[in-house]
């Protein structure tokens, strides 16, 4: 193999390495538009819409002791309407409901809306569409357990407490946020739900 061929081989090797290096460091466009982004994202437990039926004494008698419940509740979770306004103009709206196949998981809100970078008035509304009042039949919240005694009574109280806890934990039926923010180019503001204060808040990433 001549020295010229060796030099050629070395040159091709170097060129191949250069191609790999160049290909490994390519500046690729990501967000070309100078717009900013309003990200609306949170998860929270939705309100449950239940229909509760009081079990008759005969049915209770037929049920094994460890499975006896005075009130049997079945239902689903409420739907919510999310609306986002920019400077008074609706820019995004969507109906969301609990996740999971049976819609009994938390409600997950995740929207990304591009808006021009400027001082902007952002209004976010999160409104419950369904409520216990719209469900057919008696509302579980107002059901009263009948007088009972013994283990059944203890269980009934516990179930009622559990329902009350779930209601308390559920996201409020109405959440609103109306704020003016200054959006820098390619900046992101996050509108999220703070479960501690039970309202929508804005995060900008700066401490």
């Amino acid at each position, binding site marked *: 193999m001549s020295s010229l061929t060796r030099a050629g081989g070395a040159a091709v090797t170097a060129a191949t390495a250069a191609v790999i290096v160049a290909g490994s460091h390519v*500046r690729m466009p*990501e967000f070309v538009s100078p717009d900013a982004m309003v990200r609306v994202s949170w998860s929270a437990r939705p309100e449950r819409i239940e229909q509760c039926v009081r079990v008759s004494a005969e049915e209770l008698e037929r049920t094994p002791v460890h499975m006896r419940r005075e009130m049997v509740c079945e239902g689903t979770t409420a739907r919510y309407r999310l609306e986002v306004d920019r400077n008074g103009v609706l820019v995004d709206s969507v109906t969301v409901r609990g996740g999971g196949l049976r819609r009994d998981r938390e409600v997950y809100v995740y929207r990304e809306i591009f808006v021009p970078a400027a001082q902007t008035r952002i209004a976010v509304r999160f409104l419950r569409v369904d409520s216990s009042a719209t469900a057919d039949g008696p509302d579980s919240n107002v059901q009263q357990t009948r007088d009972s005694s013994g283990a059944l009574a203890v269980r009934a109280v516990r179930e009622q407490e559990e329902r009350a806890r779930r209601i308390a934990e559920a996201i409020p039926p109405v959440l609103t946020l109306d704020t003016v923010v200054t959006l820098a180019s390619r900046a992101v503001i996050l509108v999220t739900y703070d479960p501690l204060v039970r309202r929508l808040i804005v*995060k900008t990433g700066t401490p």
Partner: protein
Amino acid sequence: MAAPQRPIERIAWRALSAADAACNRLYGWRGNPLYQSGTIVVALLVVLFVTGIWLLLFYRIGSPYESVARLTDMPIAGNWVRGLHRYATDATLVATLIHLLRMFAQGRSWGPRTLAWVSGVALLALIFICGWTGYVMVWDEFGQSLAREGARMLDTLPVLSEPVSRIFTGERPVSSAFFFVNLFAHVALPLGLAVGLWIHVSRIARTNLLPPRPLMWTVIGVLFAVSVVRPIGMEPAASAFRLPESVTSDLFYAFWLPASRAVPGSVALGAGLLAFAALAFVPRLTRRLADRPAPSSVNEEICVGCRQCAADCPYEAIEMIPRVSVRSDEVARVDPMKCVSCGICAGSCAPMGVGPTGRTGRDQLGAVRAFIAEPARRHGELVVVGCDRTAPELSRVVRDAGAVFYPVDCAGSLHTSVIELLVRSGSGGVMVLACPPRDCWNREGPRWLSERVYQDREAELQARVDRRRVRITHADSRDARGTDAAIAAFSADLARLDAATPDATLDIDAICEPIELEAKP
């Protein structure tokens, strides 16, 4: 004859053979990296494994970016190793794609090779995902970009109740659990690669997993030199509250990002899956139906049970089974599901009892007898035996050099009796023009041929044949200059010998006759 190439395979082959020829000129066929693309991938995977283990010692899932930044600040133990890991990742993908193109162009994608092809596509997907998770580990802007795009695709699947994209919204810092899962995938996938590789080569005998050492160390050395000369830096850290205008990306693993971002996640995911599915579907598209060459078969009346064909078969398609007749204890049996019809076994069977229909040793003898009997044949002429692959390009070169071209299916399947007949019938010399050993379409053809001619491997070239009149030369299909030089050199050597004369003792029609089988008592 081997199955003809399809038009698209021919186009790919033309491009590849041109590149092969150029590399052969620059590096010689022993050092041609294109011939060794598959083994280079394995060598690079080993490099990735070793450097990956080292880098893992420094990585912290609780502070991924900061831990990689600390690593980057250490040039020798950190950044150079990181650079080698990174560039080896890119080179792995490039070598894999070359290997894939090579197999496609050579028509080695269908029939018994379907398993290797499909498992190879699965390996490509794994390599791709492995690279993807590796970049996410750094958690810079590029890593975040890949993670967000991957999450966007996953969110289109109806099995996840919570959008994966919510991990990166900025509600809270990205959890260590995410980086743990990502790290686990990055470490676990290579185990899948190992299993896939085992399946990939499972139908190959005498697997060579690593390239020749000079080539292997050259590749690794070049990548290491590159990592020193062009060290890997740190991009800005990922942030949920900043949209980068542009990101320094690895084109090899992120070429699809701009297109993907422009379409819904479901379309991007579907397109990606479709691309890999299409690749996996290639064997169906390239398979031969009517023109599929017949697999080898065994003539039990001739087979002496010597096991040579089973030993030589590059695809473990031949096994020895107990024989029911008295002739020998065993007889060869070809598994048609594994046989690629390469014909190597035809050259390995001394009594010529095995081979693809029409290409057995006996068929080869019939053809060479007809060739010898042609009126145009002259005593003392140089006969160049070349295979189907080289014939279109090099037969003209051979004729221009004053030699006679004698085409055969594959030099590796050439029975040595053909060479013997040519020499003893009065040819001045016989030069076998074989493909470079590392580029044999049938894997081990040139190696077996050489051992049969020079090292008494069955079916060996008989001692009565003057070896000075036989030469094996390796040339790629476009190596006209090398072929011409080899013919000239051989002609010069032959000129120093006595004039060739036909061997008076040669019985050109002599051949072992089949023996009728007798059942064992």
